[in-house]
């Protein structure tokens, strides 16, 4: 009982532009840690959260990561949302041999020995979403995104994928907007125009964060209905919808690996605990929260398995660990440090929830190096000995660049 606690770092922005999304993840981590402590902690030691605020400032992320690892000597860090924050801390985790659990869907094209990617890779979100829409008879595509790496990469992949499926270039419209774009009048008009060519059109939205609310408000005002031009989003979850009156948006779609509305006992339990923890009977849950739930449980299991918090041992123990997810089934950690997840397509409901209208039969394995990008299709990551490589080129048989 007198054993020193195990410290767990929580590296999410509590202020600045990203606080809007990340604060919730900090709370979820505190809840998970509290729960675990109620169960007696890990290895008979209590868990102690170390919360810092990187303030949506990317260099500060690196500084705080270093502080967590070097000063607080945390055993694992749960954190980051944007890709740039992950990129910023990555060298720090590699240098100081720390563990980072990254819970957000992202563009892929990365695999680090020190990072575990519990959010979706493009093949676990974007590709199935497009498959669903093709099945629904969509022939024209608007790829609308915020102008940064995740949408750019995702859209590159989707464009290649759609073309491989026989879609003409003229039937794809790509549009990028700055972060926080607030005036969507022209773009929604253009979408309407593009969609009124007599063939069924959908919008694949990688629009990020703050820009979504004005985007959906404008869709509603200009009367773009899901029955005419459905919008499928990869960054709009229950939290985002909580800020919008969804009645005019019923039927628009999102692709995730988890919805709050999923009816599983584990999810019901999770929601109950979450609401109790936040003392708010209306608090919603979302996909990145589930990713942290999975990642945390995987880490706990791996530490128990390794019998130590020593990073090298835990990293090795992580692969193959399998824990229940909240959408039904077990998610497993793959050798490429990504996990298996079900993919769900949901339609927005009037109450701000999603209703699952489609889901993959089984779980989809996260693919870090996209098969649809010429330079990455030959790469694989496998962190098991003896390969132990994040970017093994199966064509040349060499482990490229990074150690």
């Amino acid at each position, binding site marked *: 009982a007198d054993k020193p606690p195990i410290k767990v770092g929580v590296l999410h922005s509590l202020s600045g532009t990203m606080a809007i999304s990340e604060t919730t993840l900090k709370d979820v981590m505190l809840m998970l840690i509290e729960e675990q402590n109620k169960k007696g902690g890990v290895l008979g030691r209590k868990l102690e959260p170390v919360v810092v*605020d990187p303030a949506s*400032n990317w260099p500060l992320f690196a500084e705080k990561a270093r502080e967590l690892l070097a000063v607080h000597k945390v055993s694992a860090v749960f954190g980051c949302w944007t890709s740039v924050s992950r990129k910023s801390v990555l060298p720090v985790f590699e240098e100081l041999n720390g563990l980072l659990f990254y819970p957000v869907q992202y563009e892929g094209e990365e695999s680090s020995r020190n990072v575990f990617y519990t959010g979706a890779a493009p093949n676990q979100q974007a590709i199935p979403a497009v498959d669903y829409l093709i099945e629904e008879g969509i022939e024209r595509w608007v790829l609308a995104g915020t102008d940064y790496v995740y949408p750019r990469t995702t859209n590159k992949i989707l464009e290649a994928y759609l073309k491989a499926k026989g879609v003409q270039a003229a039937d794809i419209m790509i549009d990028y907007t700055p972060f926080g774009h607030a005036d969507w009048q022209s773009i929604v008009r253009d979408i309407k125009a593009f969609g009124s060519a007599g063939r069924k059109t959908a919008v694949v939205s990688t629009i990020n964060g703050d820009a979504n609310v004005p985007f959906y408000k404008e869709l509603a005002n200009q009367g773009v209905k899901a029955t005419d031009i459905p919008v499928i989003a990869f960054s709009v979850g229950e939290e985002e919808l909580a800020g919008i009156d969804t009645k005019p948006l019923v039927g628009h779609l999102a692709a995730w690996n988890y919805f709050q509305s999923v009816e599983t006992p584990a999810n019901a339990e999770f929601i109950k605990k979450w609401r109790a923890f936040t003392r708010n009977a209306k608090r919603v849950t979302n996909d990145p929260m589930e990713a942290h739930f999975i990642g945390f449980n995987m880490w706990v299991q791996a530490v128990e398995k390794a019998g130590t918090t020593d990073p090298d041992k835990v990293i090795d123990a992580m692969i193959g660990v399998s824990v229940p997810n909240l959408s039904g089934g077990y998610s497993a950690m793959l050798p490429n440090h990504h996990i298996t997840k079900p993919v769900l397509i949901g339609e927005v409901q009037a109450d701000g929830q999603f209703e699952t209208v489609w889901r993959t039969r089984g779980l989809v394995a996260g693919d870090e190096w996209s098969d649809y990008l010429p*330079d990455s299709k030959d790469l694989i990551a496998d962190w098991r000995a003896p390969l132990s490589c994040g970017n093994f*080129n199966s064509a040349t048989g060499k482990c490229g660049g*990074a150690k």
Partner: protein
Amino acid sequence: MKGGLILPRLDRAGLIFGAVALGLALLVPVLNLAVPPDSPFHVPPHVVALMGKYLCYALLALSVDLVWGYCGILSLGHGAFFALGGYAMGMYLMRQIGPRGMYGHAELPDFMVFLNWQELPWYWLGFDQFWFAALMVLLVPGLLAGLLGWLAFRSRVTGVYLSIITQAMTFALLLAFFRNDMGFGGNNGLTDFKDILGASIQADGTRSALFAATAVALALGFVLCRWIVRSKLGRVLVAIRDAESRTRFLGYRVERYKLFVFMISACMAGVAGALYVPQVGIINPGEFSPANSIEAVIWVAVGGRGTLVGPVIGAVLVNFGKTVLTGALPEVWLFALGGLFIAVTLFLPRGIVGLWMAYQHRRAERQEAATTTNPALSEG
């Protein structure tokens, strides 16, 4: 025998400052490298990195103060010069990665590879050479400042108008660098650096060397600024700050003076940025955000505008505060920081250094009052 009562004293403070900076440049690396980690005098590597970052900010603050404090040009876009210097250095560091990138491409940085770039854009050429990158660190911010300054000072854009167009400049650059099509890595910027001048960027020795280089750069910047402001040119600058048009009627070409310090200041900011990037490991468009430039101005105000020690103290103090508070009070630290800014304005109208100066000034005045019977006395 001129320059009022305060400057000579500040001078001494200035000398002390230079000595302290150079001392730090020596001492910190020694304490980091030569003192064993379990000794109480050991400076751990992350502290070296942190202090290096503060000193970069200090150099930026110094450059802001040179134009704002002494010439009345309130630049709300100095972060842009800082970031450009940073990008120049970042490009060099990217080129140093060579084929060690994820995709193993010999020339192209990873972000270009996965966005299907076929070849290195022309503006990346030459950045594999350190000397070229170092030149660009000075040239790019300097020339941009020259262009903007030439346009603005020539047509007599002053005051808030100038402030806001500098802000527009940094904001436009922010958006531009954001665009993936620009070829600077978009929002992610440039990261995952490996070597600088052949030394591993993560080695303790490199870190200490970078720190020492930053301290030296700060000391040099300080001496340069001091030389400028203490010369007659410095007095012309202050005259311009207080009564620009009157200065013109004395025959001074105000626009040349402004351009001169604006460009020097931009180069200093560029150097600060260049030293910053290898120490924090990333440069991305966020550095262009107007808020960053405003913060730099705020460091100056907190420390004491129109003094050279002030901005340095302000930058180090505010950023140290940020480091401590974001760790210790993650949920409420903004109250503390915001409160600090308000309190400084209200209670320390001339910043931290101003407080000390006011004390010196009062003492001097009391002495003077004691020796002269009547202040209104003029010789006649």
